[in-house]
């Protein structure tokens, strides 16, 4: 039979870490599928919630920022402007919230069976990604309604999505692993998400940020991603602020690799600490 040999040692970095991860690839799918299947059980509207939630938020933002605060919309219908930014933000916020709590809510599994621990936060991000795809469809309907034609820029959407994915995953891994030991993060994460929506250009266009603060503002990695989304979807001529995007890419890369590093460093003691 297979002569696969496993050596268990203290602090032994598992040799076949990534191969192991690959052989459990179906688990990622099953865990994500479980969370999706379970989410709308015993609800009347069921799957409809996935559509209603982003649409409602969009309506509120349009009314508050567009109608009441009268922020500039650069010639794009405000709902589209808001929705194109809400897509990546909601994805990031949900993924971060879900993945940072994922290890704790699966504590029982962690302490009773072995599998690559990365599967848990990763599948939590995947669940939010499914929501993201649903919202994307809502967005397209909205664009047809307001007759906003997409330009060639729309093809950059997958790359921007990847960036959002990286940001969510990176931050999620950090918080998930810290949360195992320090439950303080249970309270910190909702706060970050709440604050984040105000310091990210979701309800407004980041053109209202004074130029001298723009670079500082772009330290928020989601700012670049959200601007990118808006740039790609609305076909607005307003020039994207490239230093911000570049900064986003760098910060997200650091966040992601740092997150993986932190996760791998701590995952060996999860079962003892949780």
């Amino acid at each position, binding site marked *: *039979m*297979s*002569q*696969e*040999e*496993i*050596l*268990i*040692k*203290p*602090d*032994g970095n598992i040799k076949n870490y990534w191969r192991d991860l690959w052989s*459990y690839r*179906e*688990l990622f799918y*099953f*865990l994500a599928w*479980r969370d999706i*299947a*379970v989410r709308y*059980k*015993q609800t009347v509207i069921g799957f409809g919630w996935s559509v209603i939630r982003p649409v409602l938020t969009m309506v509120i933002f349009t009314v508050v920022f567009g109608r009441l605060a009268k922020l500039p919309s650069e010639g794009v219908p405000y709902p589209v402007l808001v929705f194109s930014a809400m897509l990546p933000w909601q994805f990031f916020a949900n993924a971060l919230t879900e993945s940072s709590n994922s290890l704790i809510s699966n504590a*029982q*599994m*962690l*302490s*009773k*069976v*072995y*599998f690559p621990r990365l599967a848990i936060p990763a599948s939590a991000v995947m669940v939010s990604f499914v929501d993201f795809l649903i919202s994307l469809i809502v967005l397209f309907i909205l664009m047809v309604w307001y007759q906003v034609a997409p330009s060639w820029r729309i093809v950059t959407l997958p790359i921007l999505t990847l960036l959002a994915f990286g940001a969510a995953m990176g931050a999620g891994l950090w918080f998930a692993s810290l949360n195992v*030991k*320090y*439950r*303080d993060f249970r309270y910190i994460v909702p706060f970050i998400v709440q604050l984040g929506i105000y310091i990210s250009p979701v309800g407004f266009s980041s053109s209202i940020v004074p130029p001298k603060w723009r670079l500082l503002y772009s330290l928020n990695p989601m700012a670049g991603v959200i601007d990118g989304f808006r740039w790609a979807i609305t076909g607005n001529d307003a020039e994207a602020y490239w230093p911000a995007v570049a900064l986003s890419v760098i910060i997200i890369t650091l966040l992601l690799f740092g997150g993986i590093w932190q996760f791998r460093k701590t995952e*060996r*003691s999860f*079962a*003892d*600490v949780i």
Partner: protein
Amino acid sequence: MSDSIIKVENLGKQYVIGHQRGERYTTLRDVVASNAKRLGRKLLHPLTSASSNPHVGREDFWALTDVSFEVRPGEAIGIIGRNGAGKSTLLKILSRITEPTTGSVRIRGRLASLLEVGTGFHPELTGRENIFLNGAVLGMTKAEIRQKFDEIVAFAEVGKFLDTPVKRYSSGMYIRLAFAVAAHLEPEILVVDEVLAVGDAEFQKKCLGKMEEVATKENRTILFVSHNMAAIENLCQRVILLEQGSVTYSGETTKAINLYLSNILPSAIEAVPLMHRTDRSGDGSIRLTSFHVEDQDGQRIAAVSSGMDVTFVLGYKCYGDHPYRKVDVGFSAHSTSNQTLFVFYSSYMGRLFELTSREGEFRCRVSKFPLAPGRYGIGARVVVGGDEADWPNDGIGYLEVEAGDFYGTGAKGYNGAAPFLVLGNWSLSDTASL
């Protein structure tokens, strides 16, 4: 090289336990506070080494020390020991759930562990969905599960309820399904913790049968932890006995079980033989000299199982002028929190003894022993003609009670901490039966 499939060398596992009550997890505040304290101490006393313990009230605890053994392919190994002996920690290390602090384990081949039945089951999902989910958690691929699906359903006997959420299952069905998934894994090594303690007798038999089949016919390697000595005896060719984190015996099954049962009494009371103990009151005319329990065949045992017929044997020696008449003897059981659970004197049964020889034994046969699994303190007292003759104040020993078939159905019954078991007949009378 050796042909072992598992090779464990000098394995050790250390836990740091906090003594602060109720502290379940570290908070940032603790870390910040303790680091600040350490820094402050360093600033105030720069010359003293900073080694003054930063974790006040913390203690290292070795759950396993220097454990070494080898397992050959196709062997079924039992692992026994008292609660807290390190069995679960050992299995957790072998299953890669936690890491050892010292030593190493070398495993050749795929290892699947079943430390708990139904890990990863989700109550909202149907039986069918849970089979796939649980299979994936245990390391099976979708194709493997699909291939085994019918077999799993047949084994679990849940066919009709396959598309019902498992939260509507009876606990028996739930366990059957969960075990069925795990039993159809096809690893080279199967690690099983006390999972057979649940479920009804028939199903337990079925599970054991399945494990035997796996061990003998399919020639897989099994590591099996249980408190059920009968199951261990049935299944395992070799047994490893763990005591306080180290291997005290490894070898033949019956010998290991006997060792386990006879070593179970704590050394604190045993260190001084009952005869020579000084913590006693009474006039000393008669002295209790020994205590042990026997099974129905008169075999001396160190652990009793709930529901068995057990004989309490109290040795005595007379010091004054015998014969003594009207001797009343009794024993009692106490919980670990020192609550008296029962007191049973011979006089309660209308029996007083007359002692004519210098030495002997009082014997009391208790049928269907009614205490739940746990550890109980045993006390005893002898009274002659209404005057206390001997009463060892700290008790005469401990009694370890293991789970047993008290109800005669194979079910263990209530899982909580109620010490007593009661037997009776249930029936129903309702408006329909009027």
